[in-house]
């Protein structure tokens, strides 16, 4: 069984979070490293990483109630805005900077990515793939802004303000000269090997500078 397949079935991660991208991320992160989770929500992933991998875990989150729950879990989270929230950190402060399911929601994705690559030696980015066949089909047949399982919101109340595909992310990484160390594509709880830009619901990329 491959490490990814094992991790996807590993009960302690996915079942706790109900999110297969978290399972992959928790597998990528090396033990005893410094980790910053940008848009960390209630700090579930960081808490797990601190307990099971001994990482020095920090988070940034804008929603006060989520920050409270994260701190109550014992995770050091800073209540602040992602678009400006990384400015205080010195260069290379972290081994990994995680941005999970958030890139498509930030106002200036490239600025956030550059900041992540400044404060971290590596970044782990997980995002919903707008190139998935269901998105393409829905858009083609309905002629409307696509609403799918991955993108369930009406256009006027969607938190997603930038739409990108697996190929879009690869092009950006190439343009910015951020080598992709690993790319894992997910559909539900399974890993996608073929035609990821068409078949993957979520892309998880490990990039370095």
């Amino acid at each position: 069984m491959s490490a990814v397949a094992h991790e996807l079935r590993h009960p302690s991660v996915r079942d706790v979070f109900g999110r297969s991208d978290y399972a992959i991320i928790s597998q990528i992160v090396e033990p005893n490293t410094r980790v910053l989770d940008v848009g960390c929500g209630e700090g579930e992933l960081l808490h797990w990483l601190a307990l099971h991998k001994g990482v020095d875990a920090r988070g940034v989150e804008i929603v006060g109630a989520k920050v409270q729950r994260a701190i109550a879990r014992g995770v050091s989270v800073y209540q602040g805005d992602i678009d400006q929230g990384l400015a205080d950190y010195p260069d290379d402060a972290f081994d990994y900077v995680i941005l999970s399911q958030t890139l498509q929601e930030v106002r200036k994705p490239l600025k956030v990515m550059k900041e992540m690559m400044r404060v971290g030696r590596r970044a782990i980015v997980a995002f919903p793939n707008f190139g998935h066949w269901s998105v393409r089909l829905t858009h083609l047949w309905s002629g409307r802004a696509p609403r799918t399982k991955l993108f369930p919101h009406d256009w006027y109340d969607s938190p997603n303000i930038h739409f990108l595909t697996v190929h879009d992310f690869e092009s950006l990484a190439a343009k910015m000269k951020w080598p992709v160390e690993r790319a894992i594509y997910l559909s539900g709880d399974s890993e996608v090997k073929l035609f990821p830009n068409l078949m993957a619901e979520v892309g998880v990329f490990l990039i370095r500078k």
Partner: protein
Amino acid sequence: MIVETQVACFDSLPLDCGVALSPVEIAYETYGQLNSSRSNAILILHAFSGDAHAAGISHEGGKPGWWDNAIGPGKAFDTSQYFVICTNVLGGCKGTTGPASIDPSTGRPYGMKFPVISISDMVRLQKKLVNHLGIERLLAVAGGSMGGMQVLEWAVAYPEAVACAIPIATTSRHSAQQIAFNEVGRQAIMADPDWCDGDYYNKKPPARGLSVARMVGHITYMSDDSMREKFGRRFRTQEPLPDFSSVFEVESYLRYRGSQFVDRFDANSYLYITKAMDLFDVTNGHASLAAALERTQSRFLVISFTSDWLYPTYQSLEIVSALRGRNRDVAFCELQSNYGHDAFLVDVAEQSELIRGFLASTYREKVARAS
């Protein structure tokens, strides 16, 4: 839980102003049990007018402690797990040496001959007590307002002795506005003819001045919202007369709190302690706030409150930003509350959740692992 204030005495305490106080006494209370590895001690630091009686019911007066809603079994500072210490600050009037204490060189109260004290002097005395209790490293130092200033001073002055620091509703230094409110209080006391240049101990104390000073203080501890909710424009009397005998609820409340304060606080302590707060700047002796905080080795939990206009959130953020700039471990949350600066004392439900989780994880990661 019935508790009794104890007093420890030390031969001498060197002060920032260059002189030494000899002897010096410090009043303190403790709650819970110190564990065998002495790794579960928490020092609580009180705000301007607080005292050593932070929790439980006092043996003498039968009154609950000033942070009894946060310290006790199952509370934010859980005394079934941790050993909690609270002291009265240097310069205070509740058992620790202060202006009302007897000057051994004259046999009379110090009054204004008491040396100028600083927040770091207060902390130096607390460190003596902590050593005296046989504790090398505190699991946490925590406090709000002036207590938060002491927390910062502890983390900078004794980095190896503080596993985690919890400064609440506080600042690294007073703004002009904060100094201004303190100065109004001091001038009210000094303008009272009964103050007699601080030499009033065998006479009538400057009750009117001290009471006005406290009234100003109380206004700054509340918020516009909390005052509207508590008093509105209601009158104390049923049928208000359009003259000076009519009294609003808020006026009556402030007068009551002012006169009550006179019975429990010394006017000269008011002068000395507010001066210590105004002079405090954790940056002193360092190139910048970040350079000062770079010395720290603690985890930090910084908390502010939305309606606190006396110690506004931006002051907490200055601390947090400096810590993040030096890649220190810091958690920060601005809690929603209408209670103004008083929130850390009265609106404790959410604050308790944060503190409980933060303490537990620090104990697990920093203390249990090391021992």
